[in-house]
């Protein structure tokens, strides 16, 4: 009975009527934009497209309304996990160490067998894991919406590329250099900006990301503009991966007495990325138990209460922002190293949105969720090449649906949060 009253107790007829109204609206919406397509100054008709789309909308709306009228969706919509997922969570909890070890072993063995193409995909997946973990510190833990995260990624990538071009920096020197440079940019931007309210912060970071990209694109003399910059491949502590070494150096296959393969370089990057991600996960775990990490989460929940308890909001936020930026910078250096070439088209807003989608789908604040989402969202589009066209559309739908259905992510952060609705 209570469920019926929560859902408004609609009858099937009412649901049907609503679905039909929705269908008419959908038909009106879809008719001009999908029913015809512009070709030159005239039109091509595709009359079946809006009808199909509207039909699906009616079906979906009806199914949703019908289930809701029968009370099936009440628990889910209010965000309470079902018993099944709780059982799974407790099982995972009980076998944590074993599962982690198994995953690590699989991840270690994987690069030797999957071939060049999938190896590159795997490296990209690791880079996204790194980026998403960095953004997760900023968005998930500190609650600062950063829409220009790609700026720090670009700073790291270009830090390596231009560092090599002008200062002859090696990969190993570029790694701390790119990280520091990105952190400096983060602090420089963050210091004046972090006083602002959440939404303004989002827009300023978005503007900043675009400024960085446009400058990289337009400053031909220094950055090479849209032509990009060539980046050297990293070396294995001074030992090179090429087929032939430069004078005075040895190559990896000569050093280890194995036949030459150009996969070694990628496997090396893959394993290095794994170590970096492992280190980052460890740091984040520790930070969350430290006063600094607790301050981040406290500030996310209630800034005014924190201020009245003597927490300095700007310093605390700045540390999160700087740390996130640094991670982005490291991701950028790895990206440049794995691609061998950087240009500004890799650093558009779409990229920021992609990383943000990963963090949101993984559940803001949840490390495991974010890692899983990064891997899935990078590997899945590669596996389903036919659906690559629909990637942006699906990301958009996922973001909206997640916010409506489960704002805390598929897995959600592990720590229980203060629930306002019970008090105010």
């Amino acid at each position, binding site marked *: 009975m209570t469920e019926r009253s929560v859902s408004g107790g609609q009858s099937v007829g009412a649901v049907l009527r609503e679905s039909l109204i929705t269908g008419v609206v959908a038909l009106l919406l879809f008719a001009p934009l999908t029913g015809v397509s512009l070709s030159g100054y005239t039109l091509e008709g595709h009359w079946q497209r809006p009808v199909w789309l509207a039909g699906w909308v009616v079906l979906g709306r009806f199914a949703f309304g019908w289930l809701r009228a029968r009370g099936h969706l009440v628990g889910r919509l209010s965000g309470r996990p079902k018993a099944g997922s709780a059982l799974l969570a407790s099982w995972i909890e009980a076998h944590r160490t074993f599962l982690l070890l198994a995953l690590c072993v699989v991840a270690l063995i994987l690069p030797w067998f999957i071939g060049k193409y999938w190896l590159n995909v795997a490296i990209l997946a690791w880079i996204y894991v790194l980026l998403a973990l960095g953004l997760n510190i900023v968005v998930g833990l500190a609650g600062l919406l950063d829409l220009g995260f790609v700026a720090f990624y670009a700073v790291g990538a270009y830090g390596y590329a231009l560092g090599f071009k002008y200062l002859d920096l090696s990969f190993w020197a570029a790694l701390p250099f790119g990280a520091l440079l990105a952190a400096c940019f983060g602090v420089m931007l963050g210091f004046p900006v972090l006083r602002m309210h959440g939404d303004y912060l989002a827009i300023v970071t978005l503007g900043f990301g675009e400024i960085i990209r446009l400058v990289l694109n337009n400053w031909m003399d220094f950055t090479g503009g849209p032509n990009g910059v060539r980046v050297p491949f990293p070396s294995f502590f001074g030992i090179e991966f090429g087929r032939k070494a430069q004078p005075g150096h040895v190559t990896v296959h000569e050093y280890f007495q194995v036949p030459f393969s150009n996969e070694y370089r990628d496997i090396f990057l893959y394993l290095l990325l794994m170590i970096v991600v492992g280190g980052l996960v460890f740091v984040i775990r520790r930070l969350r138990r430290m006063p600094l990490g607790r301050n981040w989460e406290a500030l996310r929940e209630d800034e005014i209460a924190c201020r009245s308890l003597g927490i300095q909001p700007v310093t605390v936020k700045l540390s999160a922002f700087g740390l996130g930026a640094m991670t982005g910078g490291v991701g950028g250096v790895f990206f440049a190293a794995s691609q061998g070439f950087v240009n500004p088209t890799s650093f558009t807003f779409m990229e920021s949105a992609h990383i943000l989608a990963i963090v949101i789908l993984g559940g803001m604040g949840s490390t495991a969720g974010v890692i899983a989402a990064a891997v899935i969202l990078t590997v899945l589009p590669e596996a389903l090449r036919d659906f690559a066209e629909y990637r942006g559309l699906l990301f*958009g739908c996922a973001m909206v649906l997640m916010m409506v259905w489960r704002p805390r992510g598929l897995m959600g952060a592990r720590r229980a949060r203060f629930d306002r609705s019970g008090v105010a």
Partner: protein
Amino acid sequence: MSFHILVQQVVNGLVLGSVYGLIAVGYTMVYGIIGMINFAHGDVYMIAAYLTAIFLAALTLLGIQSPPLLILLVLLLTMAFTALYGWSMERIAYKPLRHSTRLAPLISAIGMSLILQNYVRLSQGARSQGTPTLIQGSVRLFENGPDQFVQITYAQILIVVTAVIGMSLLWYWIQSTAMGRACRAVQQDRIMAALLGVDTDRVISVVFVLGASMAAVAGTLVTFNYGSFDFFIGFVIGIKAFTAAVLGGIGSLPGAMLGGLVLGLAESIFSGFVNTDYKDVFAFSLLVGVLIFRPSGLLGRPEVEKV
């Protein structure tokens, strides 16, 4: 620094500024009423540009030839359909989030923006599209030799005139009708307005409809003037219009118009006298600067944070 270039850039700036103002109205009204940045508003403008081209082609196919009639019909049709997009967007992506966390509507809006862009890209193709020139001709002022003149096209005049008419109607509507009064009440205090019997959900829907139709006016006019568009045009113009809204003081309607004009003038004078490549960098820097140094804008009141 010649006089003619300056005047020409001021004219271009006014035209650009009216367009920014028209779009900024949508940002400022939504922000004023529910305190969220409607990130997808720029893409509503993009939808309007596509609808304009589609309706123009359809009406031409139906045999309507007279340009004034075509312009009027296309404008009205585009406004109606874009408004429907605005209304549905609010229903689907924002209304269920009324009581969610502060960041949720913004993230949902970013998702909506991705949806609209990809929806148009998939249904209309990724390459840029165009419309035939409908309004030809121009007037020349201060003519003083072969390269020494200030040119104002009739399309530019149409943009400014329509923008002024649209803004005036909106202003009249907000100030003098019952619904407009409800809008102002909801902006001042949503809970109190609801207690006094104002249907806040309806007001919010109306605001989205109005914002979308204003963006539609901008989209139609720019398409008539400029003739070329693609699925990504909403992004940059959206950020710039948001800059205009912030510049004028977000939440304030005259502020949005003023901010639009100031931004349009500043940008076009910058690109006329300094550098065209960096005009977007200039606009975004202006946004960052305004938010840092004067977040309440030119006409806005500082936001007081309450527990």
